[in-house]
């Protein structure tokens, strides 16, 4: 049983109260991009064994979308944050790196202007 805390209403909800929305932080490709980029956006997913960022909706509760960082092997939940977030919070990434040094978090290695703020 997966239990996630909704960052919008604070309810600790078990998974039957939630709806899964697939991999989080996808970069959209559309008109003007190559067929390969669009195909990858539409169909290619990481499906990792380990740390995964995924979208969830508190469907039977407050109705809001959020993102959960969890381990697909152990079901350990590292944290949740609102879906209106372009990249995982820095403190959450640091916590995951400390717990899972071998996890592939290379998407988030580069510092961004937001991190400097």
């Amino acid at each position, binding site marked *: 049983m997966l239990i996630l805390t909704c960052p*919008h*209403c*604070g*309810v*600790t*909800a*078990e998974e*039957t*109260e939630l709806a899964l929305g697939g991999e989080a932080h996808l970069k959209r490709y559309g008109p003007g991009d190559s067929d390969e980029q669009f195909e990858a956006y539409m169909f290619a997913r990481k499906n990792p064994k380990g740390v995964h960022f995924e979208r969830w909706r508190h469907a*039977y*509760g*407050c*109705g*809001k979308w959020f993102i959960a960082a969890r381990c697909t092997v152990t079901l350990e939940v590292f944290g949740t944050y609102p879906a209106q977030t372009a990249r995982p919070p820095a403190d959450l990434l640091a916590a995951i790196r400390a717990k899972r040094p071998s996890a592939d978090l290379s998407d988030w290695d580069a510092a961004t202007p937001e991190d400097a703020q």
Partner: protein
Amino acid sequence: MSEPQSALPGRRAAGFATVAEAGLQGMITLRGDLASPVLAAAVQQATGCAMPGPRRIVQAGDRAAAWMSPDELLLILPHADAPGAATALQAALAGEHALVAEVSDARAMFAVTGDKAVQALAKLFPVDFAAMEPDEIRRSRMAQVAAALWQAAPGDWRIVCFRSVAAYAFGLLDNAVRPGSELTA
């Protein structure tokens, strides 16, 4: 004018707790910026209630204001007063980014009462009732349908769901209070 009818007028079930269809109940959905003083004043005007905090319900007599999500409230008031209150809210919120919808006849409401009422509810909702505060409203699911529940008074539970699933909801509650199916003595 035809006579308004609630979903299952007068339906009751008695077991180790009592289930009753709660009759006609006015309800208004209000969406907007809950931090807005204009919206808070409009809620006060309509219900006599202060703005509820997250997952809280503020009750005053036969009216209440319930926090449904970060941008949504459910206002509860007498059925006959709901259309007028909705019109007044629309006027009070002119210029605000807000939405008012009278949903009284889209919903059904049930009262589940008795010392052991929570045992019936615990069978149907994936909710940690031990962690629930007396003034908390919880949106969740009751078996397979969306429902919200709160306490009008300690042990006096109210449940709202869509009217279209009222018969299903009553059947669940009727079954859950069957004598002998208590979770603990």
